[in-house]
């Protein structure tokens, strides 16, 4: 987070200082459901923080190596929930497990996420000299309540969270009085077929939202493939991950003096000119050779010993880097250059082993150099930190993408935030930690950025509903990077980002505090959604706790009052309705501007909305028709209401389906 807030224009020095206006979120409580917390970390110091908010009703639960004295005015709550996990994992031995049967964090994920959302200022932190600066959360004075519901299963070496435990944690958090709930967890795709309410997180979130608690969830790390976004319920704020404008160039100098800048977190000594090899059969050998990163162990030790090895991989996961480094190190090699698709999830290799990533183009340059000389050599220098232009912002390749596979008409993800190579606190036992800090990547890291931003918004607008808060961040988001350059979506191949990559765009808090208009949702809107996706009357009545009957014919999901319009199956002309609430100056006049998607006709009625002290809420209709004669993919546009001060922008995503419920390979 040493760069996150400066990058987002939220630094303490920024002119319109929202941090002071909101007192850094001091009265807001962020509940985090995760792997627990490492209370000794400096990010939980409560220096200068006032008394615990009066609406707090939670507690600090003691347990293994954790007692109530570990809580303070920053970390005001800590509980743990393990019954579901224990029932499902009979092999788990509480006495022998590495995990702590208490709120204490073994994994480090919960501590990292808590730092990003609301960590206190900690100066002069870096990762072995990289990414130096001040670590803090989005709402540095907000309070943290940790609900540990994820556990380490020793015999499988995995960390997992039972939905029964997560649901109990949510139930407790609602009781305890949290204002925001942050969950950097998710199921895997495909999700529950029937409806999203069957998912534990969606169920708990529904009731939390009805009680005014904003629920922020990670969108998932199954990108860049489409239809992989999770936590897709319309009442949840689903977060995608972008990179920062920061990278870690690592100079590679070839024997022909060509310098290539790869990416790594290599903080060891310079590796002087060393023999370089790409394992391939020279033609007269009966040995086995493989230049594929995952298969380097097929090579004989002689091929790699004392050398730096170049390999190629089609995987974009950092796992392939560490496995390649392991193979080369085991054979006595001195370093590895991995040519791969960008993974946006850089990691250091164990024991400061030099492992540098390049793309295929640069990897091929190196390969051609190897083949052009009898004794190829190269030098590797330690990584450096490069901040600002020309480093651009991209949607991280791992970030899960829309459309929403359960209800394609509900745009997901909602918003994007930095989630790649984020420096934050962890436990002091975590592998690769540096003084209790580590860089992690994932939508897990992006979600708490939004949770911190939501905390500041709630501090400013305590009467806004969770839907109004979501609307404010979506309609004011940057669709470029903070410096006006476009945002690409990493994938194979890179493309301009669209709403299925980053929702409304990159969160822009400075604009979100004064959005002008909001697309609000109340109980009746959620009932409309459930009727439109097929819930029966009795279930809905039970869900909402009052007698409810769906209209006949059932409403269209297109009319759910979201700050986006997504039509996945346009054939005949459709007309849908949106309602906006004025949260700006009472007397405001807004005019509409439309950027229609390719080949789609969009007509808005009326073209002007006039608000005054009596008229705070107005509806408008949008008529959409297609000129396409074929089934197309999604094309994108936008619909903006502007009063020349506020631009309230919602994304338009339309797919023509002349032939409906149809799949083809062409």
């Amino acid at each position: 987070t040493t760069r996150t807030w400066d990058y987002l224009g939220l630094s303490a020095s920024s002119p319109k200082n929202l941090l002071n206006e909101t007192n850094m979120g001091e009265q807001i409580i962020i509940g985090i459901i995760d792997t627990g917390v490492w209370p000794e970390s400096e990010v939980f110091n409560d220096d200068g923080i006032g008394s615990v908010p009066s609406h707090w009703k939670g507690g600090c639960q003691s347990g293994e190596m954790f007692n109530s004295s570990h809580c303070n005015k920053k970390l005001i709550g800590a509980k743990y929930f393990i019954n579901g996990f224990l029932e499902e994992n009979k092999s788990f031995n509480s006495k022998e497990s590495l995990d702590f049967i208490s709120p204490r964090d073994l994994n480090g994920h919960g501590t990292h996420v808590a730092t990003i959302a609301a960590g206190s200022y900690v100066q002069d932190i870096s990762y072995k000299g990289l990414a130096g600066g001040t670590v803090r959360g989005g709402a540095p004075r907000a309070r943290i309540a940790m609900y540990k519901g994820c556990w380490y299963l020793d015999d499988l070496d995995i960390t997992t969270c039972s939905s029964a435990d997560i649901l109990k944690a949510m139930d407790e958090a609602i009781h305890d009085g949290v204002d925001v709930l942050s969950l950097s967890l998710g199921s895997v795709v495909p999700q529950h077929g029937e409806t999203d309410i069957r998912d534990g997180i969606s169920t708990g979130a529904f009731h939390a939202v009805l009680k005014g608690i904003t629920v922020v969830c990670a969108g998932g790390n199954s990108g860049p493939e489409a239809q992989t976004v999770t936590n897709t319920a319309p009442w949840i704020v689903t977060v995608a991950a972008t990179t920062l404008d920061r990278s870690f160039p690592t100079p590679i100098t070839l024997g022909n003096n060509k310098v290539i800048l790869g990416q790594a977190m290599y903080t060891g000594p310079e590796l002087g000119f060393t023999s370089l090899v790409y394992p391939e059969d020279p033609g007269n050998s009966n040995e086995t050779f493989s230049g594929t990163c995952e298969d380097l162990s097929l090579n004989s030790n002689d091929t790699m010993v004392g050398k730096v090895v170049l390999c190629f991989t089609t995987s974009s996961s950092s796992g392939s880097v560490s496995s390649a480094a392991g193979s080369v190190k085991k054979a006595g090699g001195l370093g590895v250059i991995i040519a791969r698709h960008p993974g946006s999830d850089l990691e250091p290799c164990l024991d400061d082993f030099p492992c540098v990533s390049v793309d295929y183009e640069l990897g091929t340059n190196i390969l051609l150099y190897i083949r052009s000389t009898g004794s190829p050599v190269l030098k590797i220098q330690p990584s450096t930190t490069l901040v600002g232009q020309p480093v651009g912002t991209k949607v991280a390749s791992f970030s899960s993408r829309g459309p929403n596979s359960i209800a394609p008409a509900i745009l997901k993800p909602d918003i994007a935030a930095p989630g790649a190579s984020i420096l934050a606190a962890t436990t002091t036992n975590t592998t690769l930690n540096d003084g209790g800090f580590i860089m992690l990547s994932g939508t897990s890291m992006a979600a708490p950025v939004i949770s911190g931003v939501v905390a500041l918004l709630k501090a400013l607008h305590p009467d806004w509903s969770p839907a109004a808060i979501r609307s404010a961040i979506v309609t004011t988001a940057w669709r470029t990077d903070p410096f006006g350059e476009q945002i690409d979506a990493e994938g194979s191949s890179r493309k301009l980002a669209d709403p299925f990559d980053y929702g409304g765009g990159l969160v822009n808090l400075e604009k979100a505090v004064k959005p002008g208009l909001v697309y609000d949702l109340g109980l009746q809107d959620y009932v409309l959604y459930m009727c439109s996706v097929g819930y029966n009357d009795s279930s809905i009545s039970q869900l909402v706790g009052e007698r409810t009957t769906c209209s006949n014919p059932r409403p269209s999901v297109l009319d759910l009052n979201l700050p986006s319009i997504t039509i996945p199956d346009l054939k005949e002309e459709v007309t849908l309705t949106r309602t906006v609430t004025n949260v700006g100056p009472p007397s405001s006049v807004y005019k509409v501007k439309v950027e229609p998607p390719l080949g789609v006709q969009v007509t808005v009625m009326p073209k002007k909305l006039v608000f005054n002290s009596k008229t705070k809420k107005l509806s408008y209709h949008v008529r959409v028709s297609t000129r396409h004669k074929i089934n197309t993919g999604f094309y994108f546009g936008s619909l903006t209401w502007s009063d020349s001060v506020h631009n309230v922008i919602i994304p338009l995503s339309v797919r023509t389906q002349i032939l409906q419920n149809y799949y083809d390979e062409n």
Partner: protein
Amino acid sequence: VAESKVHIVYLGEKQHDDPEFVTESHHQMLCSLLGSKEDAHGSMVYSYRHGFSGFAAKLTKSQAKKIANLPEVVHVIPDSFYKLK
């Protein structure tokens, strides 16, 4: 003996403000399904009673199916697992 697994029995919005009352109603529902208070207590994993109403309990497939048919039950889902993101 049919294997029992953790199931989440979701009842929707709470019908009562007193959490103890809500939890007691969960126990009664389990008791009438399983036949005794002891079995109900042995089966109960969690009672959800603040934000909404429901409970987690160890049930066999046929018990889960049976309880799902009760009019006050919105749905019954087997426990599932989330991953860190």
